[in-house]
């Protein structure tokens, strides 16, 4: 009974989170006459109206004012305006490519429809927020894999990738710990270090938080789930010696990510490390049976393999999903 209730609470929590994520990205249309706004290609913004607008109004560039939300002073130059044949959608083409990671504001002065004015509209144009979060996750996992493109966490990577079972155990432990410690460091940075102007102490605080979360997971797991604790074994303590776990909070602090984005980056970093360990251990298990020249046996051939993996992961670079 108690278990059922707990599951219900968890489900409700997830639903609330999903709802917040989906709808925090869509709000912002202040005029009922604007139905939809979105980016189109690299240079254009598409605006859909609820009814047909007058051609004379729609094709006049001075009626539009477009800027990136953080810089209201810098007005983006519109090169051409395209009106669809049913006069309901307008495509604004810009001279420069748009930075789609920033939300853009579009001001439309005195929208004219069938000779009547329906007032001024200020609308926000942004990428789908869920897609943005997903791109952070995939980015940290594959495109900018911490092991293969940033060469972080190599000591633990080579130390625990000899057997597939230990590699997966390490990867899973690492993912859990990194999510916990990154969320804590995000919270402390945003609500304690930044308001008190102590951001220069971030490295010390983050190191403390990492060891704290490792210690806490160690203590709690020992009692709550001894089987899992035994499976993790020495790797739990080894997590402290990993540099990815320190790099992620520093990246979060630098980029001023919010809670959801931080969660995605931490999860992506953890899963990326898991993938890297799994791939590497699969190869190294086979290398045991291969006829490797004596000079290359052991760690040297592992470094060569890691370099080949890094080359393969270069194939993901420049990939954008949304």
């Amino acid at each position, binding site marked *: 009974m108690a278990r059922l209730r707990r599951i219900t609470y968890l489900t409700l929590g997830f639903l609330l989170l999903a709802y917040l994520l989906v709808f925090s990205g869509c709000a912002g249309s202040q005029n009922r006459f604007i139905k939809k706004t979105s980016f189109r290609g690299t240079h254009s913004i598409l605006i859909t109206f609820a009814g047909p607008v007058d051609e004379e109004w729609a094709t006049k560039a001075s009626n539009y004012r477009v800027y990136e939300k953080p810089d209201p002073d810098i007005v983006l130059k519109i090169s051409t305006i395209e009106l669809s044949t049913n006069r309901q959608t307008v495509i604004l083409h810009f001279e420069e490519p748009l930075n789609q990671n920033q939300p853009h504001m579009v001001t439309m002065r005195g929208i004219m429809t069938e000779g009547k004015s329906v007032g001024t509209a200020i609308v926000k144009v942004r990428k789908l927020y869920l897609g943005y979060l997903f791109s952070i996750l995939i980015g940290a996992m594959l495109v900018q894999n911490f092991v293969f493109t940033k060469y972080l966490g190599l000591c633990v990577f080579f130390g625990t990738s000899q057997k597939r079972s230990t590699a997966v155990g390490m990867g899973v432990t690492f993912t859990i710990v990194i999510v916990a410690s990154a969320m804590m460091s995000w919270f*402390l940075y945003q609500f*304690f270090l930044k308001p*008190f*102007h*102590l951001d220069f*102490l971030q490295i*010390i*605080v983050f190191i*403390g938080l990492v060891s*704290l979360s490792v*210690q*806490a997971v160690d*203590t*709690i797991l*020992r*009692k*709550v789930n*001894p089987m899992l604790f035994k499976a993790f074994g020495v790797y739990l303590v080894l997590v402290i010696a990993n540099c990815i776990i320190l790099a992620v909070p520093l990246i979060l602090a630098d980029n001023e990510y919010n809670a959801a984005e931080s969660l995605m980056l931490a999860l992506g970093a953890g899963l990326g490390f898991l993938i890297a360990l799994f791939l590497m251990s699969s190869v190294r298990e086979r290398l045991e049976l291969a006829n490797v020249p004596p000079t290359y046996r052991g760690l040297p051939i592992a470094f060569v393999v890691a370099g080949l993996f890094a080359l393969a992961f270069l194939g993901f670079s420049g990939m954008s999903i949304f």
Partner: protein
Amino acid sequence: MDPTLIKLAIGGIVLLGCIGLFFGIGLALAAHKFAVKANPKVEAVLEVLAGAQ
């Protein structure tokens, strides 16, 4: 010394001290609550062994 710097330093010491104290007490409580009874004989045997590996 610039008084704002001194204020910053004292604020930092107090804040970090508070955070440390908070988490220290939290960890101690967790260790108390999730204490696992270990067999004292295990430790004694380990002590006697050579301990090279």
